[in-house]
């Protein structure tokens, strides 16, 4: 029943959501085969991987400002935690030998990074989530700066500003299936990730899973509780929602998605340093959420795609003029200001109010509208009389 009611102000996504997502995934799935792009293809692959990474991150962040209605300026802290969890486990445990090197396996690292992110999300969230507005924003900002400072200063663990080079690529090791696979292929199957293609499909898969989880979360009890908290905290509390609990859950889930993004980044790039986790990155991801429409999943996807591809393409185009490359961020500022002027709710805004007001039965809607308008016109009259 809930599905029948338009969710986004853009009618296209509301009506054809599965079709739109299907087309979107199909177009992305075949990107590695777009040979007509010629020399640009390599760059295009790189931009696509980056776009999808940021879609995962932006969807993770979206839970906090979009679903729960809190301003989070420290998302990059969890991204950094995920990246360093992944990088350090790979490097240290990989060198330790047999019993421990299972921890250097990327498929083990993903859940570990997510858990580590969630742990820090809970540690930060539990004491601070009763704060509101500016106070909460500044605490999250302070946290992300502290994370970066710890990374810079704890040389014995993280090598500080020198970063962690030489993080090996993931591999798919099917040796444990050898008793079965030996009937088809002689040697045990071990596939090492090489080049852009496997990373492309890895992050593609991660993005699909993230989008799926977000769509399910939105309609779940959890998601509806978050929306209630966002719309009116006191009313939500009066309706029996344990605000602290749901906020901490939101924070933990958001942080774990940030950490998963970070763990991918470390294994994909092969090199991480504190420079990648500047405060600026948090703002950029927040911009994607705001640009697309807070709380709107297709909006956030679009926002991330637009900002990342714009940034990368401009960097390529403006390469001959190094001064202008830095100035491209000014363009983002202009875009955001124009957005706030002409489309303040984002590219694909969420229409929660409409969902409540609309029903399949037209007569009910009409009577609701009538009563609403009569009340509002009546109040206007009252105001005039005064």
């Amino acid at each position, binding site marked *: 029943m809930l599905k029948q009611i338009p969710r986004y102000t853009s009618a296209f996504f509301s009506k054809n959501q599965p079709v739109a997502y299907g087309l979107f995934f199909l177009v992305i799935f075949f990107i590695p085969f777009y040979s007509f792009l010629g020399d640009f293809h390599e760059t295009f692959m790189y931009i696509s991987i980056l776009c999808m990474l940021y879609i995962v991150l932006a969807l993770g962040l979206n839970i906090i400002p979009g679903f729960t209605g809190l301003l989070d300026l420290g998302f990059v802290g969890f991204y950094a935690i995920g990246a360093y969890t992944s990088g350090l486990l790979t490097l240290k445990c990989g060198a330790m030998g047999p019993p421990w090197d299972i921890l250097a396996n990327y498929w083990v690292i993903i859940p570990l990074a997510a858990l580590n992110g969630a742990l820090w999300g809970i540690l930060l969230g539990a*004491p*601070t989530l*009763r*704060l509101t507005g*500016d*106070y909460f924003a*500044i*605490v999250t*900002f*302070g*946290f992300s*700066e*502290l994370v970066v*400072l*710890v990374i*810079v*200063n704890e040389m014995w663990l993280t090598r500080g500003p020198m970063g962690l080079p030489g993080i090996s690529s993931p591999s798919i090791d099917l040796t444990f299936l050898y008793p079965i696979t030996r009937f088809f292929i002689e040697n045990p199957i071990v596939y090492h990730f090489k080049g852009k293609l496997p990373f492309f499909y890895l992050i593609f898969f991660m993005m699909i899973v993230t989008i799926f989880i977000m769509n399910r979360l939105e309609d779940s009890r959890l998601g509806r509780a978050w929306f209630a908290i966002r719309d009116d905290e*006191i009313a939500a509390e009066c309706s029996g929602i344990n605000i602290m609990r749901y906020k901490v859950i939101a924070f933990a889930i958001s942080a774990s998605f940030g950490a998963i993004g970070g763990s991918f980044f470390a294994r994909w790039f092969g090199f991480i340093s504190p420079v990648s986790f*500047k*405060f*600026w990155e948090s703002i950029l991801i927040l911009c994607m959420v705001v640009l697309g429409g807070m709380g709107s999943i297709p909006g956030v996807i679009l926002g991330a795609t637009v900002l990342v591809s714009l940034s990368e393409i401009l960097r390529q185009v403006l390469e001959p003029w190094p001064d202008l490359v830095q100035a491209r961020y000014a363009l983002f500022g202009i875009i955001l200001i124009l957005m706030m002027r002409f489309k303040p709710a984002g590219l694909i805004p969420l229409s929660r109010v409409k969902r409540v007001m609309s029903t399949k039965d037209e007569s009910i809607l009409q009577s609701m509208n009538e009563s609403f308008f009569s009340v509002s016109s009546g109040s206007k009259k009252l105001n005039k009389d005064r």
Partner: protein
Amino acid sequence: MMGYTAGVKAFAAAVLGGIGNIPGAMFGGFVLGIAESYGAGYLSSGYRDGIAYAIMILVIIFRPSGLLGRKTVVKV
């Protein structure tokens, strides 16, 4: 991107003292500056900014309305 540290620290000092409170903002600035300098001297100069942020977070957690701020009552 250079000026944002100063801007953020000013904001942190204001939050520390209690937003909307002028003596509080001054006091917050003093506390933050002294803590930062002593922290850099006695603990570790690498964590100079970190000490400021850590103190700010602790103050906000234990005194959500700032050092000199008054408790606000939420009206429904």
